[in-house]
């Protein structure tokens, strides 16, 4: 048996959930970023898999979207980490539970 689309989707769902887990339950800001990266990667995996299993021939839309999403994810990671550093400078902590300034 060769891997089917279902399998890829399950793998990506698993990866997504793990990313969500990291983003939701860890207190360290960097873990949240790690989780987000994982979720993005899971989404990319979906794009590629759908492209691969779609009826051929067709334009490589899925691949292109994945490429762009990686680029955007890179930008996001850079900004996110920069934010972590500047927040750390400001509050001397990276524990997100102590960062509740959003509270109205």
């Amino acid at each position: 048996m060769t891997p089917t689309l279902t399998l890829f989707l399950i793998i990506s769902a698993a990866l997504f959930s793990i990313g969500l887990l990291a983003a939701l339950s860890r207190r360290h800001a960097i873990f949240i970023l790690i989780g987000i990266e994982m979720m993005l990667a899971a989404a990319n995996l979906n794009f590629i898999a759908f492209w691969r299993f779609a009826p051929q021939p067709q334009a490589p839309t899925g691949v292109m979207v994945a490429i762009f999403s990686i680029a955007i994810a890179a930008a996001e990671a850079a900004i996110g980490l920069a934010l972590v550093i500047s927040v750390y400078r400001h509050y001397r902590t990276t524990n997100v539970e102590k960062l509740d300034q959003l509270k109205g």
Partner: protein
Amino acid sequence: MTSWILAHLWLIPAAPLAMSLLILGLAGSRPRTGSALAIIGQVVALGLAVVAFVPTLETPGFRTFQNFTWFTFGEQALRIGWVLDPLAAAMLVMITFVGLWIFVFSTGYMAGDKNFSRFFAYLSFFSAAMLGVVIANSLLLLFVCWELVGLASYLLIGFWIHKPSAAAATKKAFITTRIGDIGLFLGILWLYGGSGTLLFYDGGNGCLEKTGLLALGASASFIALLIFSGAAGKSGQFPLHVWLPDAMEGPTPVSALIHAATMVAAGVFLVARMYPLFSFGALDGVTPSLTVVVWIGVVTALMGALIAVAQADIKRILAYSTISQLGLMMVSLGVGGVAAGIMHLLAHGFFKALLFLGSGSVIHGCHHEQDIRKMGGLRRIMPVTFLAYAIGMMALSGVPLLFSGAWTKEEILHATAHWPRSPVPYYLMMAGVVLTALYMTRQMICVFFGKPREAAERAHESPSVMTIPLIVLAVCTIALSAVLTPAWPWLHSYLTGEPAQFDLGRLIQPMLFVSLALVAAGIGLGILFYRNAGRDDPLARSQPLLFRFLENKMWLDELYAKTVIAWSAMFSKLSDWMDRHIWDGLARTIGGAGQLIGIVSANFDERGINAGVDESAAGTRGLGRLIAARHSGRIQTYMGVIAVGMLALLVLYAWLT
């Protein structure tokens, strides 16, 4: 000339309106210019009205109209126009003529007022709006001008705006008439929907003509009643009469204008104008709507006369007499005596203006004292005013032969006597006539006879600018009777469109003796009761309870304040409360439910759900505050909520497909 004025009938209201705007715009600080402009406008309007009057004399039953499109909505044109017929022409002349003398009187009465020229702007506007009502050939245009009359009265009654009582009175006047106007508005809508047009006359297609009325069918009675509610509001009919006495807070010329020529006349005029609708489908001259008109009129007439007996304010007495007379007119219209009602309206316009201006002269002479108990003996001090006032009083009481009011009143009694439904209105009307004579005698005695009391001691006769209008109006009041007598019922036939014949034999009719007896009884009783009256009222001594009942206007104001006003104020508080607590609370609850997920997630391992419940019980300060309090401020909570929301969407989508 004839065709020119028919095509330019709009100029009659336009002249005072233009003057009003001109005064407001230019003559702010030049009082003389203001009054001059207003009087010029009124003279122009009077001239044009007379010019318009001429063609209606030539042919009996003359009627011409001119319609045009106001605006087009979708594919439908909304048309309005103006009409000239005997009814309109007679009213035009009366309004402009009486109005003119009121204007002249005002230049004396209002002299020295801070806002002198603004007063004349308002007066001109008032006159313009009323003239618009009269010439309107569309119920919509009539309603527009009708509301402008309301606005003008609002401005004028509250002219002495620094007086809180004036401010309250003017608000009351506007709102009370507006209650009636809502009915009128609904009537207009219904009429428009039913007949497809709001034009009165449109070459056979108007809503007062055959096809339009037939299209209405049975709904005509309801429409008529709704329209009557508007008329009742403006004309001070029970139970919407309460604003009229309070309207005395305005300067006296305003009271004269409101009570004689404009405003209150509008309601009677409206019923007369819409008479084909009221009488549509009449059996024996009786329709349900007209029956209502009669009974309301009867109640109003009697109530007004009764209350007037116990008032002490010179203007209030006149105000209640106006209410009573308007009720009389309504009865006349209701029993089918349209011409009689309108004739009484016209005659009443003259002598009530005379009485009000006379009372204005008295008030002016007594340094703005209005309590008749403090006057007395003025006939020596103010002879001209006394004479004029006496003529007005006799016209109002209906002293036969010489005075115009007597003839019209007699005709009304005549019409009422033949009403097939019930004889009760006739008897009650007779009682009203007696009462009218009674309270007018009382007023005359208190004001002009006896010894001068405190306010009369320093009194003086008014300047000629005020007495001349009195003389003119007094002469007119007498002269008008020439065209009213049964011997030569010219005005009657002019209004009904039949030729008038001179026949001296008909002058003396049985009804003449009836009214003579009634008036004599009223005046005699008055003299008997009040001959020694001064500071205290004989009625108050002998029937204190009845007197207090009448003096306090049958406690109707108090009744309204305790019921309708209190209830609606309570409703407003209630809706505000519901808004703040129930509806907003509902929203907050829904918002709170959404937030509950967040609370559970955020506080799960720290504080448990318990604390969250405590907080939700405490948070009742608006959704914003509530959400703010619920926000943990932690991004992880937010993300968790988003994830749960996504999951819910997923499930919803899977469930739907």
